[in-house]
């Protein structure tokens, strides 16, 4: 649609991920490595699931649109399941790596805690997922035309960007919650994450009824944010601490 829409959508979709990266990840090389490895794991899961879908699509009749739509839904769900499997696999890998890191570090413990790894791994998944969702749409938004010729909504670009933003943050929160659940052996957490992921994916299939997909996904994202905050060691007490800290700072300074 032109450069304005390109930059607007790029900022919406990747703004939070970018700011998270520069403020929390970029300074620590270990975190960068875990981020990129996480992105790679997500990528492999996507590759495998898309291979399955591709084979299924080619093996069946390409003209039967209902069948193809069904196959797409199946592929989508299969991909979600595979992503969570890979998330679990990455968790196991990181646990093993953690022991190794603890062994070679000068202090007793590992330089990075499981919580931090959970957050970084989740962010890695989210960034890669966002990139794959959005880059190709962004490149088309640079041209002079906008979506709508064939009856699609003209808000296509902006809603794609909003969905990508939500999904990136959701992956981050799911990473935190998932690893925490694995640590404490709470298997129902893993199942819950998987189910929520399936729900979000399923909601995106409602497009172009954007009213039906974007607000519910944001509601889920907010809920997940709260859950991740609590499971990563935050509490209402800390929030009130923060508030009083600020208040006292404000009092002392004024």
């Amino acid at each position, binding site marked *: 649609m032109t450069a304005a829409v390109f*930059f607007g959508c790029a900022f919406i979709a990747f703004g939070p991920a*970018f*700011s*998270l990266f520069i403020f929390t990840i970029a300074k620590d090389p270990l975190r960068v490595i875990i981020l990129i490895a996480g992105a790679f794991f997500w990528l492999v899961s996507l590759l495998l699931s898309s291979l399955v879908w591709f084979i299924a699509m080619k093996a069946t009749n390409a003209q039967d649109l209902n069948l193809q739509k069904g196959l797409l839904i199946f592929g989508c769900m299969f991909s979600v399941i595979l992503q969570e499997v890979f998330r679990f696999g990455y968790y196991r890998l990181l646990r093993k790596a953690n022991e190794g890191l603890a062994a070679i570090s000068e202090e007793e413990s590992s330089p990075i805690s499981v919580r931090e790894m959970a957050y970084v791994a989740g962010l890695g998944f989210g960034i890669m997922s966002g990139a794959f969702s959005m880059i190709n749409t962004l490149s*088309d938004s640079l041209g002079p*035309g*906008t*979506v709508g*010729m064939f009856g699609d909504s003209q808000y296509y670009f902006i809603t794609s960007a909003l969905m990508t933003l939500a999904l990136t943050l959701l992956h981050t929160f799911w990473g935190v919650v998932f690893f925490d659940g694995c640590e404490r052996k709470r298997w129902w957490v893993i199942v819950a994450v998987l189910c929520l992921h399936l729900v979000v994916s399923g909601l995106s299939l409602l497009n172009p009824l954007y009213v039906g997909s974007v607000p519910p996904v944001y509601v889920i994202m907010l809920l997940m944010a709260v859950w991740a905050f609590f499971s990563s060691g*935050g509490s209402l007490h800390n929030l009130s601490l923060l508030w009083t800290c600020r208040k006292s700072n404000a009092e002392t300074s004024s």
Partner: protein
Amino acid sequence: SVTTRDLKKITLDVNSNSVAQKIYVEVNNTVPCVRLLNATHQIGCQSSISGDTGVIHVLESEADLEWPLTKGPNPPYMILLESHLFTRSIMMKIKKESSRIAGVTVVVPNTSPSEFSPHTTCPNENTGVYSDTYGPHLAHCNTTVWNPLGNGLSYEEFDFPVFSLKEDKQCYYDHNRVVNGSAPQYPLCAMQLFSHMFAVTDTATCMRRNDVINFSINPEMVCDPLGDFNVWGSIRPYNRSQLGHRDNESVVMAAARLDSRAFFWDVSTGAEGSISGFVTLLAAAHALRDVTQVAPPTHNILFAFFQGEAFDYIGSSRMVYDMQNGKFVIDLDNVHSLLEIGQVGLRNGSDLFLHSDPVSRMNDTVNDQVREHERYRCSLIHRHHRLVDNFQSSPLPPSSLQRFLRAQNIPGIVLADHRAAFNNKYYESYYDNADNLNLRYPPNMTAEEQLEFLTDTAMALTEVATVVARALYKQAGGDGTQVDNIKADSKTVTQMLFGFLVQANNSWFQALIPPELKDMLSDPPDFYVGVASSSPAKAKPLTRLVQFLLANLTGTATNLTQDQCQKPDDLPDESVQMYSYLWVQGTVPHNGTEKGPFCVRASVRLSQALSPAFDLGEYASRNYSTWTESRWKFIKARIFLVASRDLEMLTLGVGVAVLFSSLLVTYFISTKADVLFSSAREPASAAY
């Protein structure tokens, strides 16, 4: 452009992912107007390098121009014109306000308007024979305006793209209609046209830039000279290794032009403008084949078909130059006289006019020759023919003869169906097609039946061809008693007219061409001269088709095998120096006995038709044609919707807001992280 010529009809679908498919509709079969340059000017159309986008506006009438030019609130506009609105006044108005206009598209018409000629009123006025030193009162069409209906659009320069497309107004009616003078709502339907031309200013500039490519990192030619190949053949063959003057040789030349042009690139037909002439000459050559074997005339007869005549006589000026410099099999002193066949398809009744040059006829010898020639013709009058001598004081119409006269005073006559102004109302335009010649076939005929059907147009041209053939024979000193046996074959004429004007890919044309060229015949046939190529094998399909036609109609079939046909010098009686040997497909007759391919021996050759200005390096020459065609990367058009500026700015605003707020929040959280996320080792229930 040579490199992108093949891509012309292929839609460039580089971006085939699904998002792009939701946005853009590529338009197939686009016909652009391209940039041509000569010694002093550039003409044609140009788009910006990343295409020109404009909101589509369908023009209802000339008064409706007010909306896109001044009143409309969503410039720039892309104007969609019906063909009857494609006039000089509208295009000039658009040209003046071109800041608000992204481009113009003209809808491909189904019927012809009453008259339309985008050429100038005085074709080739600066490169003909009349100038300030030769017949100044006749120069620049002072006495006779040949093409009074010409509006000169082809020679104007437009800095926006002009395309010719099939009608598709659905998008406009859905989104862009102006209701009660109020502006339509976004999103609006828009079109983007790409036709960026590399060459600028004039031929000298672009040729200089071509020469610089040896030193640049990214060598790209910017323009190519126009040109092709002339086809010539003779009754008695000439040894092609003997060039220059031949002693005691006096040749009667007969000439016609092959090419034509239109405002848009590569869509010209020239039914009356050139086809009527060269088909007549081919039929006359065919008629002379038998009688010249039986009773050969004293002089040789040379048939010449010139390419590139629409662009300041490229072909004929090249042949004259070659003759002057001893690079052709004969030279100008060998030319006895020249008979040229101009536009002969639209005769009023049965009148044929003989045009000659009054200035050259002031020389008595020339005058006598011309009068002789006319006498021959008048003596050939059928009962229903009238040959009118037009020599009083009217100049020659634009014709190849003018280039011969520039070099040497040669007796010559141009045969035409018009006394003064052309009868052709569509000179050098897209509408000069079969309808212009009244070529009609009865309904419900298959292509093969139409091929054989004798149309009235064909009969008329056959009569002219008979007259031409007889006159040539008499002029060449042939036996007077044989003259009445010379008759042009109307079946050949009607087959040629069908092939050139209706469907080139027919069984007769297929039989005449070699097997490796059988895909060369594409429809619709196109007669624009195009850019010059260096080897005869790459000559334009039209030129090669005329070459094979002339070979078939004047040559002889031989019994040589394919190998012998390619290397005839091994045989004692054959000589590649004298004849050309062509292996052609031949026909498969209906009764099943396969005739198959055979070898044709004919004294038909191709000679290069590239303006001497390019060989001499005189790119700003006033004497020779200096026309070049610009190169381009790709030419395409696409339609899509555009969103309002407000929505775009909203998106950008939301994006910037999201980015800044996320930066702030993240910074804040990361500095307070130790407070917010207390360590996991501390019991969560500790009270503070």
